[in-house]
């Protein structure tokens, strides 16, 4: 079995109860319930428009939910700005289009938030940044600007930038779907390494190999609802719902 054994604690990292969200009159997320324990690696997949990105963007309040509650690390997400900033500094996020700051060097991208949000001294922040840049294997690019790096390198910088905040939870919103095939692997390797260290991760991705290798739970969403969730082995070999079977046959079939 490919799946590495990693421990999952009983401590709850994220608790989502009866969460609903609308875009105008469009009901994007319907009665979503999800509990994530510390150390869990969850892969969320589903057809486009199923609400999977919206779900993880609600967790750090990039999107506002209108009903139900989300509790992250014991702090409830409400419109209280202090809570939102606290949660955001504990939850790292990587985007499909990297969203690095083009006017800052790689090193400055990584030290910005630690210096201004965590009030880390500059020197210490730079040491931490170099540590994580080494971890994602691009310390030699530290003085360059994002525009000079390849897509795969940029996404690894984005991961390092999040890690510099020492987050307890990492969210990945389709981190590899804007990348060339040859660069996907270098990003996935970084994510696998992160998973093996016990980071709590929620990944929206269609990389099923990654899901099989590191996830301990796969969630399938459609029409704003969680349709099926299971351990990866069961999920891929023995999907229960018809919609899941159809989806899997379409993405694995070719």
């Amino acid at each position, binding site marked *: 079995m490919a799946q590495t054994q990693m421990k999952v604690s009983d401590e709850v990292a994220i608790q989502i109860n009866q969460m609903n969200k609308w875009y105008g009159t469009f009901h994007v997320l319907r009665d979503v319930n999800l509990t994530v324990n510390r150390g869990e690696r969850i892969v969320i997949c589903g057809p486009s428009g199923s609400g999977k990105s919206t779900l993880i963007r609600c967790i*750090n*309040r*990039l999107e506002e939910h209108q009903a139900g509650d989300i509790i992250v690390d014991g702090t409830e997400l409400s419109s209280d*700005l202090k809570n939102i*900033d*606290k949660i*955001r*500094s504990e*939850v*790292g*996020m990587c*985007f499909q*289009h990297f*969203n*690095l*700051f*083009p*006017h800052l060097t790689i090193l400055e991208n990584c030290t*910005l*938030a630690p210096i*201004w*949000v965590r009030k880390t001294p500059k020197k210490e922040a730079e040491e931490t940044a170099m540590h994580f840049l080494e971890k994602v294997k691009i310390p030699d690019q530290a003085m360059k*600007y*994002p*525009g*000079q790096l390849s897509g795969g390198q940029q996404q690894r910088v984005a991961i390092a*930038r*999040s890690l510099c*905040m020492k987050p307890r939870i990492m969210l990945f919103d389709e981190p590899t779907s804007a990348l060339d095939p040859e660069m996907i692997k270098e990003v996935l390797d970084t994510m696998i390494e992160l998973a093996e260290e016990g980071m709590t991760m929620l990944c929206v991705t269609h990389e099923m190999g990654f899901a099989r290798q590191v996830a301990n739970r796969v969630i399938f969403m459609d029409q704003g609802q969680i349709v099926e969730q299971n351990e990866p082995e069961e999920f891929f070999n023995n999907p229960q719902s018809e919609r899941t079977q159809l989806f899997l046959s379409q993405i694995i079939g070719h």
Partner: protein
Amino acid sequence: MASEYSYVRTDFLGESPPPARETGAIKWMRENLFSGWLNTILTVLAIYFVVWLVVGVWPWFANGVWDADNLAECRAILDGATGACFAVLSDRWTQMLFGIAYPADGFWRPTLAFILLFPSVAPALFAQYVPRKFLIATALYPFLAYWLIWGGTIMIPIVTLIGLIAAYFAFIRLERASGFFMGLVGGVVAAAIIWYLGGFVTDAMSGFLALPEVASRDMGGFMLNMILGVVCVSLSLPLGIVLALGRQSSMPIIKGICVIFIEFIRGVPLITLLFVANVVLAYFFPPGTNLDLILRVIIMITMFSAAYIAEVIRGGLAALPKGQYEAGDSLGLNYSQAMRLIILPQALKISIPGIVNVAVGLFKDTTLVSVISMFDLVGVIRGPILSSTDWTGVYWEAFGFAALLFFVICYGISQYSQWLERQLQTDHR
């Protein structure tokens, strides 16, 4: 079976140098000036035009008379030949630069202020090359320049400065303890107290390091254009940023105020605002208040250009991808940090050409104050010089000099902005 298309590359080509560029003046000319019949004709015509222009204008410069007491004397010296009467410049240059009423023994004061302007703004304009601590010179310059140009005891700018510093610290303290609004109130109160008490100090020490006072109505010439231009540009940039951010705000009242302000000011001609400053504004203040005319004009021009700059910056803000805001948010930066560190540096960089456009336009628009009978450079030429019996009719020489002064400054601003854009180019290197 091997197909006829089958191909495998076994040796990879190494890098080879680019082909040497063909050079040579004759080749360049043939390619750029004489590449065809039509181009050859256009080139010849253009050369003919330039030569015709230079030949026509040159005697006017070369025969120029620099030493004469009036136009009639100029004409007598020229004796029918083509020539300029630059004597108007040598006779009246102090009026053109400092206005008609600035005391002659004080000309060194605005001149010194002008010279000090360059080292003072350098730390702000060339931030990459000048250590940050020199920004203190930029901060102190306005107070020094005020003292030099307007005169009076140095205690006036010092008390003003102390009041602002007190307001700043009161704001910081109270903002941390009880929020932005209380901070604002505390800052205003602190400044008011210092300025009130400072009033007694300046009265008591009115002779301390005092320069002879010059009233605002005695300011004039190019000095007035420079004062208005420098002050209004440096005030309207921050105000424009605030207005642009306010217009994007999610708070409806703030957004509404900013939209109404911008749309109203942009919809009104600057001349109208200047007339308001000159005449009407007095009705809005309690009787007896006498707000300095230059101050009133500064307020109006600043509001005018701030509205334009706000719209330019709004364009820059709109050009940023939404992902930049989200990345800032997801890292836990609060609103002011995200704006200051991520959004504004990029939005302002995009807006540089537009901002410079407004700044150059604003600087030239300061000549409009001649309409409300302030004797700026154009006002001095139109009024005291051209209407004097000595110099009636020397339009070309006088206005040419004015154009030259404005061109030098505006071209400098333009060159600086292009340099700055190249410095900030980080995305496609």
